[in-house]
């Protein structure tokens, strides 16, 4: 009833407004804070356009499709892509919605499990998942905030194990990774795991976080890790790799060139350290990363080695 009354009142106001304000008034308002609005508008429209063009996860494409992007572009990049072609066969693009690192990691990991059927790895990561759960609990997160996300990841993990009634094919994994109601939930699971890992080792991460955002570790997690669409950098990658015990290789494709004149492509391997022994890189046996992501400033895609 109250709403009805309000509406009627507003309706009258709306009518008088129609009479009272000439068009130019509206234009004046629309131009308020023009520059920033333009930037925000542009950003929003980039996101919206991107959403239409690129699914959460693209198809596997030959690496030549990467070169095609730069045909009329930087010669350094084209040289570097040639170098990449020696080692890598294909690329799978992810949507540039701020979740690309987590989504790339998600698909790459599940695809690896589906193809390798590595049961030891599944048992191992399940233990890491439970450690993350306890970490969140000890940090004071109520179970109800994260348990659905954990359940969904564990379900995905079970689904990629073959030979069961619930097993899914590679094709179905791709479809699920493109389905927002699955994909975003798994991305959010990784955000929870990452946030817990950062806060658990806050004294280790603090100097890096101060360099990035000049906030406290907790505030950083609340504003730059937990909300969907917040982009990831080395802090997130280190934390996720540590928490789940999964090595990640990131190959950097940018315009930087080395002094010696030769073109080389840099990569960095994020090797998990044992959570109980910070920085003890030798405590676990060295594993070659089975997840490789291609980093171009602001974006991660999945790379497939030959």
């Amino acid at each position, binding site marked *: 009833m109250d709403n009805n009354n309000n*509406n009627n009142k*507003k309706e009258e106001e709306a009518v008088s407004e129609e009479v009272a304000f000439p068009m130019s008034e509206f234009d004046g308002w629309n131009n308020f804070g023009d520059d920033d*609005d333009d930037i925000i508008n542009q950003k929003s429209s980039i996101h919206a356009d991107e959403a239409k063009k690129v699914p959460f996860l693209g198809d596997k494409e030959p690496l030549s499709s990467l070169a095609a992007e730069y045909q009329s572009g930087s010669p350094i990049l084209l040289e570097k892509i040639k170098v990449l072609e020696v080692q890598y066969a294909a690329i799978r693009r992810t949507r540039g919605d701020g979740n690309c690192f987590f989504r790339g990691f998600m698909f790459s990991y599940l695809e690896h499990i589906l193809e390798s059927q590595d049961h030891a790895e599944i048992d191992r990561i399940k233990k890491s998942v439970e450690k993350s759960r306890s970490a969140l609990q000890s940090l004071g997160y109520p179970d109800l905030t994260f348990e659905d996300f954990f359940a969904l990841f564990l379900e995905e993990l079970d689904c990629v194990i073959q030979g069961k009634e619930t097993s899914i094919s590679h094709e179905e994994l791709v479809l699920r990774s493109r389905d927002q109601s699955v994909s975003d939930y798994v991305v959010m699971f990784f955000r929870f795991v990452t946030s817990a890992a950062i806060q658990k080792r806050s004294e280790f991460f603090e100097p890096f976080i101060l360099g990035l955002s000049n906030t406290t570790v907790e505030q950083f997690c*609340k504003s730059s890790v937990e909300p969907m669409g917040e982009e990831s950098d080395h802090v997130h990658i280190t934390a996720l790799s540590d928490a789940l015990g999964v090595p990640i290789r990131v190959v950097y494709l940018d315009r930087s060139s080395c002094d010696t004149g030769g073109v080389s492509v840099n990569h960095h391997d994020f090797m998990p350290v044992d959570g109980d022994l910070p920085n003890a890189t030798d405590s676990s046996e060295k594993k070659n990363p089975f997840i490789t992501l291609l980093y171009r400033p602001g974006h991660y895609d999945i790379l497939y080695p030959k």
Partner: protein
Amino acid sequence: MCSGVGLISRISLSTLFFFHPFVITNCEPNLTLHFHSPNPTLPSLFSSLLFSLSLSLSLYAQKIMTSSSASSRKNLSKIACNRLQKELVEWQVNPPSGFNHKVTDNLQRWVIEVIGAPGTLYANETYQLQVDFPENYPMEAPQVIFLNPAPLHPHIYSNGHICLDILYDSWSPAMTVSSICISILSMLSSSTVKQRPEDNDRYVKNCRNGRSPKETRWWFHDDKV
């Protein structure tokens, strides 16, 4: 200081409003980005009017109550339902102090009583928060507004809209209704003056077609209050 900037091209919406009070302003998310466009042409106005009317009628048919501040009300997803039921149980076991939720059978809209904390400017005052949950809660933030009368506060507009980052850009599923309430109470408690935001009149005037605060592009540039 807070400011709510960037509003829907109001001509078309207020015209629609005139014909039909139950306009759904959020049926197409992309509607929120726009506004340097020229005035709508007559045909486009008519087609959006028809669209809005048919949408509203179908909502009547489903007997879903909409209000001027509700965005398009799709039913909650299964995950959203489960999550809200858990939050409700948790609330009943362990309600945040200073709040009182009158439980109804409507899981999708909670009306919560807020009691100003003792020793603050709002001591002994009672206000009402209205929390509307979107279909894909908690991936998407709930819409939270104060019902009339909204407390006098530098970040709360007279139409009940609240300038608080966690309700918009900084929302995450790690938050709950309960944690939102605590943030809002803390925002009230730390206030040193009882006054409206500087741009209150302009903002409220531009919201009178009943748009959701979630369609506002908020600028957050005060972490003191």
